[in-house]
């Protein structure tokens, strides 16, 4: 049996504070891309930026769901050891859902949306995407955006964006989504109105 060294933030308090500020800025300014490149190695295919979000926000209070492509033993061990979050096989009870474009629709459709008196009880999705600069153009409007903001991602299909628009219609209910690429993050909270070219 081999035990691989699994390091997290070198200076947990300060590094996670820096990571959180990027995440807070991302959520406060939907669609903006912010760099997030943590100083630790993560087991592939987990992206460092997605791992940094998990290590900053997840703990024993937050059931975490991972899609099949990310449910590698090395990743599960890494996240269990670093965060202590219970890994759940069901989507509904998860507070955080770590997914890829292939599973994003399933996760978004099944995730907890909060309830009318506690809309904050909803889940947060972390979607690993190949790029935040290529792909079809979306136009964002809403709180945090001065006028309009462009947004691009690769790999997410029309059915996913339909569901994201439904998610916005549910406001104040709904899920909030972080997108993580190789070097950065961006966020789309439920409050953001998403317009697609060629769609209403």
């Amino acid at each position, binding site marked *: 049996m081999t035990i691989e060294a699994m390091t997290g933030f070198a200076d947990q308090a300060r590094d996670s504070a820096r990571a959180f500020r990027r995440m807070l800025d991302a959520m406060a*300014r939907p669609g903006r891309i912010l760099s997030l490149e943590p100083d630790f190695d993560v087991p592939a295919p987990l992206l460092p930026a997605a791992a940094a979000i998990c290590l900053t926000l997840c703990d024993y209070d937050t059931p975490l769901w991972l899609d099949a492509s990310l449910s590698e033993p090395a990743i599960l061990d890494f996240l269990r050891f670093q965060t202590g979050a219970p890994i759940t096989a069901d989507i509904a009870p998860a507070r955080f859902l770590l997914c890829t474009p292939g599973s994003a629709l399933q996760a978004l459709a099944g995730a907890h949306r909060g309830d009318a008196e506690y809309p904050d009880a909803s889940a947060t999705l972390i979607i690993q995407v190949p790029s935040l600069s290529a792909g079809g153009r979306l136009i964002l409007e809403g*709180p945090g955006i001065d006028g309009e903001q462009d947004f691009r991602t690769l790999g997410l299909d029309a059915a996913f964006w339909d569901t994201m628009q439904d998610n916005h219609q549910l406001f104040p209910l709904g899920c909030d989504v972080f997108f993580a690429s190789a070097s950065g993050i961006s966020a789309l909270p439920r409050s953001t109105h998403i317009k697609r070219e060629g769609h209403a």
Partner: protein
Amino acid sequence: MTTGYNFAYLNEQTKRMIRRALLKAVAIPGYQVPFASREMPMPYGWGTGGVQVTASILTPEDTLKVIDQGADDTTNAVSIRKFFKRTAEVATTEETAKASIIQTRHRIPEAPLREDQILVFQVPIPEPLRFLEPRETETRKMHALEEYGIMHVKLYEDIARHGHIATSYAYPAKVNGRYVFDPSPIPKFDNPKLDSCAALQLFGAGREKRIYAVPPYTQVKSLDFEDHPFTIQKWDEPCALCGARGTYLDEIILDDRGKRMFVCSDTDHCRKARSGEEAA
């Protein structure tokens, strides 16, 4: 670090819990997110909510400014500034333009805020409906149903009794067209600054265990009536120290024979105006 405290005082699990609440607060503008507020080394009413929010967003690179009623040199502001200087070793400033995080009790600085700044409010009673409906179960339902009729009745009763809306601080406003919120006991003079502000605005209520937020560029509309539109306070005279008009003035009693003067409540803004600097 030799203080024996974790960076920014709070332990990491507490910060994660508060950080999760902050992200949800930003995602649902104006909605009060419950959080597991901790006991802090200061009494309730001295900014325990604001301090917990600041501790959770602070990074070593930040420059912190703390004001109490606009002033940097009052007990509350001085002690909170020293608290973070000691536990987080961050730089502090009294200049609005140089701060990246501004924790405030009951004022918004006169100088316009920028995108790279965050304003943290200390909130005593986060629930705008609380004095009209004491039951949390009921106010929660009213927010869920967007049922804000009693707030308009309260403002109407002001008009019926006084001829105008007499509420002059903690003036209720609607955020992003959905949640009515309490902007903390800032004078209504500051309400227009909440609207479409470039900076992120976070609110922490320690005793009441609530966090809420107004994201940048978000509509904040003070409640009013078509025939009684929202207005802010105005003064007949300028600041007695810097001569500024259009700033919020504090009344200072000079003797026991009715002599008094009005001076800017924002001490940094007033100082800059007097020294001839551009109050950025």
